[in-house]
């Protein structure tokens, strides 16, 4: 079955620093990847996505990098702010179903 995991369950960063959250996936046929952010008591929210024909995609303060050779995905958050504190999930899919990792908890230290 699918195996999507995160290297680190928790991450603490100083406000203003850059954050990097990593994710490994196992299905080489996965062709679509998403990062979600989940704040306490809320549902996951879409942050950024990337398809397998790309290796980098940038959004506002966020960048996703995809390395299909080693089946690795990362999320970079620039100038991390207190509002970025949350759990971050990666998810991958080959169709209309997504498979989620357990998440990394990001804490921003003021």
């Amino acid at each position, binding site marked *: 079955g699918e195996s999507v995991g995160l290297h680190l369950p928790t991450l603490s960063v100083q406000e203003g620093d850059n954050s990097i959250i990593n994710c490994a996936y196992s299905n080489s046929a996965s062709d679509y990847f998403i990062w979600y952010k989940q704040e306490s008591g809320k*549902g996951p929210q*879409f942050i950024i996505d990337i398809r397998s024909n790309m290796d980098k995609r940038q959004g506002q303060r966020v960048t996703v990098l995809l390395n299909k050779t080693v089946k690795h995905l990362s999320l970079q958050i620039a100038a991390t702010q207190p509002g970025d504190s949350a759990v971050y999930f990666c998810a991958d899919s080959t169709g209309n179903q*997504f498979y989620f990792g*357990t998440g990394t908890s990001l804490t921003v230290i003021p």
Partner: protein
Amino acid sequence: DAGITQSPRHKVTETGTPVTLRCHQTENHRYMYWYRQDPGHGLRLIHYSYGVKDTDKGEVSDGYSVSRSKTEDFLLTLESATSSQTSVYFCAISESQGGINYGYTFGSGTRLTVV
């Protein structure tokens, strides 16, 4: 979350009772999903639907059933609630166009406690 609502937001029920959770969308999306979220497990798929009256099982479907009689509503029923079904339940919707799938939009979740 715009376009998708779950009800109730919180529920406490007794072991052995049936429970139904509701997901309602206003986006006219074809696909709807029910997930449960537990510490250490992430989001696990219970059931999903790819159209009215078209549903299929996910990886943790035992003890759950679903129904979709209208595009906008997807109901999750716990036939006889057990303590192991205490969890946070999330509904999600998605769409695909031209063979390209798009990501999920999640509801705010239902926290269910079975005592």
